[in-house]
């Protein structure tokens, strides 16, 4: 029992020692912020935990014994300890040993077979959480950038307000000019109309006078034909007709 405590205490004691310089540091110790001055964020956690052999014994133990005993040292030590416990009956073999063996074998078999899958699944869950948070952050960044773009565009739009007022002033100028021209045209048309009226009136009057004169002349001529003249002209017409009929025959 005491030896078990010693075994358990050894790795802890080893960990508190500075790591051996000979082999590369496999387990980085994390300096904790004990003073108020450290405002930088903590360095990221190491990717993998400390190296362990056979799932139980940290690598530092083997490195610790390597200079003195070589590669087989810790194994000899382990074998010797186990044989010592068994032979001296410090560890007694009873029914619990059998149970332990069965249970441990099944456990180890299960872990070796399904361990990686379960680890991958757990990692995936974690990844999803991180990815969700990252997506939220990216969306916020994009939204902000889009908003900034929009604001700049609106500012650019505002700069174009001079167009509007130019258009309005143009409209006014065009309207005034069109009205002025219209007035000129109206004046011209009115004057022309009046002059044309005068000319037309004159023409009409002259024509009427002519017609009347002709009519009056005709009437007076007809009146001046006396009955005597009428008889003479009728006799002459009859003579002419007879002559014509004679020539026709």
């Amino acid at each position: 029992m005491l030896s078990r405590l010693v075994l358990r205490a050894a790795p802890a004691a080893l960990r508190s020692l500075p790591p051996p310089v000979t082999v590369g540091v496999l387990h980085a110790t994390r300096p904790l912020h004990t003073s108020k001055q450290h405002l930088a964020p903590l360095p990221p956690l190491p990717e993998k935990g400390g190296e362990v052999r056979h799932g139980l014994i940290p690598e530092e133990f083997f490195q610790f014994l390597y200079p003195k005993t070589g590669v087989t040292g810790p194994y000899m030590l382990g074998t010797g300890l186990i044989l010592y416990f068994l032979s001296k009956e410090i560890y007694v073999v009873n029914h619990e040993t059998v149970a332990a063996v069965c249970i441990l074998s099944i456990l180890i078999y299960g872990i070796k077979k399904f361990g990686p899958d379960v680890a991958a699944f757990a990692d995936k869950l974690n990844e999803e959480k991180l990815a969700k948070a990252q997506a939220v952050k990216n969306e916020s960044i994009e939204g902000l950038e889009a908003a900034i773009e929009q604001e700049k565009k609106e500012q650019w739009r505002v700069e174009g307000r001079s167009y509007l007022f130019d258009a309005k002033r143009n409209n006014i100028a065009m309207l005034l000019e069109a009205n002025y021209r219209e007035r000129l045209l109206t004046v011209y048309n009115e004057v022309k109309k009046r002059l044309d009226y005068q000319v037309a009136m004159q023409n009409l009057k002259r024509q009427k006078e002519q017609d009347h004169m002709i009519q009056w002349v005709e009437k007076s001529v007809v009146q001046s034909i006396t009955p005597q003249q009428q008889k003479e002209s009728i006799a002459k017409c009859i003579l002419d007709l007879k002559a014509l009929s004679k020539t026709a025959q």
Partner: protein
Amino acid sequence: MAGRRAAIKAIDWAAFAERVPPNQRPMFNALKTRSDALSARLAALPEKPPAIDWAYYKSAVAKAGMVDEFQKKFSALKIPEPVDTQTSKINAQEQEAAKSAEEYVQASKARIAQYEQELQKLKSMIPFEQMTFEDLHEAFPETRLDKEKYPYWPHKPIADL
């Protein structure tokens, strides 16, 4: 003739149309149609009315002094130009618009500064892999669980899970 023709500036309608925001497009279209109608009307009217042929009328009209009188009065006639009452109003409007545009641009710049600040904060955040929950609550205060209002786990209404 100096005051007669207020200079009609050539307006680049395409550039104008670009700057119109979509919610004011109908007003812009109305303005454009009105401008086009006015310019069409202006183009239809001749710049000067044709000259009256006084010689013909002098020979044609019998009444002696009438044509001469007409001619005298016609050349003496001064047609008043239409008075421009609106340009000053337009200029006043322009001043007001300049002022409000200034204010808008100022407010817009303030908003841009705010956005830039938040953007900076987001961009300089530590990556999520290195954050603790404390860091997360600092960066995004809305993730902080209110332990006073909901003292029992999960520290938020069940519906929000």
